[in-house]
């Protein structure tokens, strides 16, 4: 049975540079060379994200390994219509890195984990990763982020790259929870605008928020 799946993946993998979705089909079929190729393609982005969030080379390596291993095991659960393979993969990296940072913060240290046979414990798959983000260019996103008002940019970065909760952000920045909430929303709406994406009226309106 699995041989048939392998053959299909092999036949469709004929072009010199297989697409990401083909590689993911290879992962689902248990093809190590597909994992190898996907890793070659995105390991640097994944490691950059994991390092940015964890601030630690060793933890970042663990995050990248766990994320790719999670993709390896869960490739069959990727839904093509909901976003690119790249973004799906990077969203897994992001989730994992935030998990690691959060677990590390309150308690002292994680127990030593083995090196050769690490098995990630219940890795969260992203439920939202977006259609468009895989096609955006890094310079455009950087510009959009730079265009945000400082306080909005700050809360979004503390949350998304710092792994801080709204309560922690409120303490850190010294503003009420409602303000954190409205700043995050305004930041995301502002980013959408800068990126040339549509902004629906419901996104504009905040409910129960403090002053921005």
């Amino acid at each position, binding site marked *: 049975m*699995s041989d048939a799946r392998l053959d299909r993946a092999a036949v469709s993998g004929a072009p010199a540079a297989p697409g990401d979705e083909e590689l993911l089909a290879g992962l689902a079929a*248990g093809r190590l060379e597909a994992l*190898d190729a996907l*890793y070659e393609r995105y390991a640097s982005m994944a490691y950059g994200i994991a390092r940015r969030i964890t601030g630690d080379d060793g933890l970042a390596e663990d995050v990248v390994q766990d994320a790719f291993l999670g993709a390896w095991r869960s490739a069959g659960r990727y839904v093509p219509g909901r*976003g690119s393979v790249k973004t799906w993969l990077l969203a897994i990296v*992001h989730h994992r890195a935030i998990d690691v940072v959060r677990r590390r913060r309150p308690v002292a240290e994680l127990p030593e984990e083995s090196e*050769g*046979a690490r098995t990630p414990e219940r890795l969260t798959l992203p439920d939202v990763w977006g259609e468009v*983000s895989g096609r955006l260019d890094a310079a455009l996103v950087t510009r959009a982020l730079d265009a945000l008002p400082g306080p909005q940019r700050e809360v979004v970065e503390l949350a998304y790259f710092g792994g801080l909760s709204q309560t922690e952000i409120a303490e850190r920045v010294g503003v009420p929870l409602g303000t954190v909430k409205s700043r995050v929303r305004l930041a*995301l709406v502002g980013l959408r605008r800068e990126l040339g994406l549509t902004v629906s009226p419901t996104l504009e309106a905040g409910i129960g928020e403090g002053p921005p």
Partner: protein
Amino acid sequence: MTAHPTLLCDEARDLVPLYVTGALDDDEAAAVREHLAHCPQPHPELLDLGETATALLEAVEPVAPPPALKGRLLAAAAADLASGAHPGAQWSADGSSMRAPESSARDAPISAVSPPVIDLASERAARRPRVAWLVAVAAVIGVIALGAANLGLRRDLDQAQAYRQGVDQALTLAGQPGSVTALLAGDDGAASGLAVIGADGTTRIAVRGLAPTSGSQVYTAWAIEGDAAPVALGDFTVTSDGLATATVTSPTATPGAVVALTLEPVAGATAPAGPVVAAGTTGEPAG
């Protein structure tokens, strides 16, 4: 933190920006997820803001990870296949269709396959002096033995020490010219260790976490080259402390061969019949 057993639509919509940026506590995020999963109303803001948050990942500067990371990832992925943890695993639990996962001739080459192991030869070249490298690797594996053991402290220590000795012997062989090494791993990291096959066919295997054998049961080590039938490297038993070190003499193995351990009902099997308990792929030979 207040628990949110149920959220109204407006409340959920209100929390979506915090949800997609990961700023909610676990219970709050769970409440949002719960609402979104069951709400009959559409929540387009989830997709819109979710993709916006994810777009931020594009702005992060890529950094090349250490080269050894790929080896570790592929070794763990290969162990998944061997243990049946991967949904697409070709190796059924009864081990009857055992075959090297990455070497089928029918697989169209997507890219060159790197051996899913830490490349000991290049690691050694990168670290000097050589003795320090051997000690470093042994120490890492020793930590695994301690961390994974479930027995009392005294037995843990004895076990770790005995395992360390087995690993040391295997690493000594691994450092000799022409030796190839495979890291072995089983389901959920329960069994782990390494197998080294020397240029003359001498094989040293150190594994911990194997269930004890009983009666006539033995573990059999196999080398599998490409699509060829598995070749038995030798049999060994495991005592009640879950520890085994084995030295057997076998045909030599080339880099890329899979080394697998199966649990067999009796010694002397010529084809694997029992379940695969651990497996790994050999890397490039030591220089």
